[in-house]
């Protein structure tokens, strides 16, 4: 998907990340924040967590998506500038994880919006999150 020249130009430098926490247990959210703190420090690669999806190049999604979140997720995806990379972080957003049988579960993220990368784990370690994003960048 990311082989076109325009797209690889867009994602060349300084990716800005927007974090969407679905119905998660918070672990993945905390590990994403952990990536920003001194031990992992993604900011040295120009990555920055931004407050609005309108400024973002990458949409990070953590947690399972319930019916109330699904509407918001679609809206946020609509607001996002295209092209955008969507990364599903953690078992819940990849497959639904332990909550997949729940009565309010609205499907894993890739049934709702297209996903570019999956980072499994419950929660994935910050190293895994970093590795996932870099693998995605190399693909382009």
């Amino acid at each position, binding site marked *: 998907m990311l082989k076109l020249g325009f797209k690889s130009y867009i994602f060349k430098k300084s990716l800005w990340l927007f*974090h*969407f*926490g*679905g*119905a*998660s*247990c*918070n*672990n*993945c*959210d*905390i*590990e*994403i*924040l*952990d990536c920003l*703190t*001194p*031990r992992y420090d993604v900011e040295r690669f120009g990555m920055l*967590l931004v*407050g*609005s999806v309108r400024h973002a190049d990458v949409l990070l999604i953590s*947690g*399972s998506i*319930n019916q*109330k*979140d699904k509407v*918001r997720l679609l809206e*946020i995806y609509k607001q996002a500038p295209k092209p955008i990379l969507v990364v599903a972080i953690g078992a819940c957003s990849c497959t639904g*994880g*332990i*909550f997949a*049988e*729940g*009565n*309010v*579960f609205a499907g894993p993220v890739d049934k709702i919006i297209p996903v570019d990368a999956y980072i499994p784990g*419950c*929660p994935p*370690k910050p190293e895994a999150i970093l590795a996932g994003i870099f693998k995605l960048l190399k693909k382009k």
Partner: protein
Amino acid sequence: MSKPTIIPIGPYHPLQAEPELFKLYCDGEIVKDVKWETGYNHRGIEKLSESKTFDQVFFLVERICGICSTSHPFAFANCMEEIVNVEIPDRAKYIRSIIGELERIHSHLLWAGLAGHFLGYNTVFMWVWKYREPVLDLFEIITGNRNSYAMFKIGGVRRDIPNNLVPTIQKNLDALKHKLDLLIGVVMDDPVIHARTKGVGVLTKQDIINFAAVGPTARASGVAIDVRQDDPYAAYPLVNWKVITAEEGDVFAKVAVRLLEMYESVSIIEQCLEGLKKEKEGDIEVKVKNVPEGMGTGRAEAPRGEVFHFVTTDGGYSPVRHKVRAPSYTNISTFKKSCVGQTISDATISLAAVDPCYCCTERMAMVYDYYNKKPILSGKDMIKLSQQKTEELKKKL
């Protein structure tokens, strides 16, 4: 009276990692009322629990909340052990308490960092999260995972802490104590932090009783409520420690209570490690063959307050009814008192002071204009407002 302006905080904004919508009804800059809307984080856990076996439920309740991911299994284990009526070995008790207290330290550090961020002290945020890493490393050494430890089972724990690991843990704790001294020095001596947090978001003793608040929120207002003391479980009756309380009930008192509690936690862990050395290695569980019909309640003191679990069983493999009450559920209602009458820039830290955990309860917040329903302040703006106030104060002092 002028028309109120509604300021929504959430559901998806950087103030909290979790989704939750707060609506602040404002007159000018003063917050008149606050309402909240939850449901963004509903996963149907109580219903799911009825379809899992007792051993599987531990993994499920662990994922109610990632930050207090030991307190829920802790309460559930207490609950199941009441139904089965077993006494677990002392070594398992010590291990449970060690995990519980390590979790309290990492949770309070996490909160201190976020509070620093809201006040505009990003340095505090970065440094505190750096100090938190060695605690997570300890978890990784002991349990194999940084979060979600999967240590608990009915009748004991899944993994032992071998005695040769004790010096490593002790070494990390000593390093941590030094860092805590530094942190307390920074917070207690900074005039700007005093100015921003003293007298802000005050909850009196009577308010706490009226709202039935629990945990550090209650203890900061002089209510010495702590499940570890009131209804002792695991190794807490076997070690010496005291409940930290403060009288003022403002944000500063909540900061102080949390910081001092970390010292207590370190001391509890040290005593538990001493206790571990006396017990035989490997004696960590009682085999439980089946769960009889019955009802049980279990309580545990999470970093945020009391976690309560209620389970009904019918002699089968899974719970018939499982009810969970998390501490944030009662603590969130104190916003009605702590935010009202404050300025918008103080509302951020007042909300954060309770350390609300919505994955336990649920989560998000935004500011809306009441009449044309347009958002006027996003969460980012709220933090900016709060940080601006700190800047102004810094200049003044």
